[in-house]
């Protein structure tokens, strides 16, 4: 099999991440952190597709995650089915919402700013709705959810209880990386690049802008809706506040920019760094909010390229210099 560098990277990252539980899962504190890192990396990956590649700024990742989660939990309760089935319904519903927003936004020629405000309004409406409809959702106090039935399997394998959940979200993450690889290396990637540069020009060479933007919106929202129930499972509790703008969207945005937009590994790198720092700051109380705010300002003003792009430019420059020196020596 002929592997290119990008495919090799996916394989290496998968192996490294798969080795984390046996090596590092000493206590529930560590296993919780790593599970959370992977969940947020999936979120940042989804935002990378829709915001990074098609310039549609979603400020309702929390609401999409909540849509997937509440649909999964409630359908499982009402129909008495396993959440493994309703999970798919939840993700599809979230995907449909994402596709609808992108379809309307593109048809109506909404600017990125208007999409941002529109999705933010939807985010707030969602939180109000799930808090208000307490007879259905359990309201702001929420309800317990541990429905994926992992306890039986968890007993049979060694290590802390989150190990099995970690491998599930890791599978989702790897699948997301593969989807991302497929998108960026197919006609979709080309179309996304074209319409991001100049929408009118892209349309004039026959790219169906509405269709491609809607597909990007569906894919991202589906992924976000799919990972949501696992986030709930990790919290063992579903309540509106865990899907809030401040607890989801702000973090995912910072991760994506910190790691680098439009890169394969940026979302993971951003998630690792931000959640590690955030965890360290937990004991500092409000200082963590202060530092998040500073980080947000600093990143957007001075470091919009992000870590992955920054490092790979550095490496490229290094190798360029090396080659130049070698060519000087041979001449």
């Amino acid at each position, binding site marked *: 099999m002929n592997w290119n560098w990008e495919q090799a990277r996916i394989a290496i990252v998968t192996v490294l991440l798969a080795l984390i539980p046996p090596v590092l899962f000493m206590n529930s504190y560590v296993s919780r952190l790593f599970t959370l890192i992977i969940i947020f990396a999936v979120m940042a990956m989804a935002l990378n597709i829709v915001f990074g590649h098609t310039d549609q700024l979603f400020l309702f990742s929390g609401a999409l995650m909540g849509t997937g989660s509440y649909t999964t939990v409630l359908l499982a309760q009402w129909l008495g089915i396993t959440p493994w089935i309703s999970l798919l319904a939840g993700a599809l519903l979230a995907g449909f919402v994402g596709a609808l927003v992108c379809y309307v936004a593109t048809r109506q020629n909404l600017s990125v700013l*208007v999409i941002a405000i529109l999705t933010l309004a939807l985010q707030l409406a969602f939180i109000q*709705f799930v808090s208000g409809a307490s007879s259905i959702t359990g309201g702001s106090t929420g309800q317990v959810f541990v429905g994926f039935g992992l306890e039986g399997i968890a007993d049979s394998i060694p290590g802390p209880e989150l190990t099995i959940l970690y491998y599930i979200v890791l599978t989702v993450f790897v699948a997301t990386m593969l989807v991302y690889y497929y998108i960026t290396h197919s006609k979709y990637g080309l179309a996304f690049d074209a319409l991001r540069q100049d929408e009118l020009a892209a349309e004039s060479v026959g790219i169906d802008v509405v269709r491609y933007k809607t597909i990007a919106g569906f894919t991202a929202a589906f992924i976000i809706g799919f990972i949501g129930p696992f986030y709930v499972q990790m919290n063992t509790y579903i309540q509106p506040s865990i899907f809030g703008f401040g607890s989801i969207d702000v973090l995912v*945005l910072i991760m994506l920019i910190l790691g680098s937009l439009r890169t394969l590994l940026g979302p993971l790198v951003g998630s690792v760094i931000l959640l590690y720092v955030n965890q360290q700051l937990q004991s500092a109380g*409000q*200082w963590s909010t202060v530092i*998040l705010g500073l980080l947000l300002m600093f990143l957007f003003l001075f470091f919009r390229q992000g870590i992955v792009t920054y490092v790979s430019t550095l490496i490229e420059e290094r190798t360029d210099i090396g080659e130049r020196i070698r060519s000087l020596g041979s001449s």
Partner: protein
Amino acid sequence: MAQILAASTLEILVDGLARGVLFALLGLGITLVFGLGGVLNLAIGVFAVMAVLATVTLLGIVNSIVAAIIGGLLVILLIALVVDRTLFSLVYQSEGSERELLGIFVTLGLATFLDGLLYMHFPSGYSIPWRVGAINVGGLVFQSSSLLIIGVGIVLFIAFYAFLERTYLGSATRTVMQDETGALLCGINPRRIRTLVFLLSVLIAGIAGMLYSIAYTINVSAEFTLGIYAVLVSVVGGVTNVTGTIAAGLFLGVLFTFSNAWIGSFVANIIVFLVTVAVLITKAEVVSA
């Protein structure tokens, strides 16, 4: 029965208009800065809250409420000046839609940053004392705070229009809003106008915050809600349209209060958010212009 309903409707309408005035003032803060510089200032709510906190703190030091209010406004103007000279200068270096995105994130970062700092020192709810209760006018009971808010609001709107129409600075502001290059050719320095108008927007937001706090107690987390409502009002009004913003503020305020009184507070919020979404979708060209 019908008479009681009509009477209570009138009472709710007055409360709704009061809320509408607050919405309109906050929305103006967004519209002015966005119209002039393309920055959607998500931190406007923090300035409104900071004005209240500064005033309440000063009330513990000086004995005069007027001095405390003026002092509170001066404090937020000073902070706004620092923000304008540092953060906004950096944001204005970029252009077009890049600046719009940068503006959203930088002001969101600023709001988060100030939120964290404020929480440490002001953990509970605060309000500027206003001890006049309900007023009975011919059998109708009105909240005196609502009447005060509407009164101050009318004065501020008139003053604001007089500023825009009658003063040199006001015409310069309108010129920059319409055509930046043209303004530059007329010898107007857009950057200086932006600083002045940003300070003006913060002043208006500060007054709105104080008015809000005589009707409802305010805590630091109210900042986010106030900021969001400011943005929604401005967007519904057309983002760069001053009269539209005032109309949108009054409309959404009345809509919110009636839904709140007749259906419930969760539903009231949802209605306002969904109306915003509907306006954004149907009137997109107005908003994007």
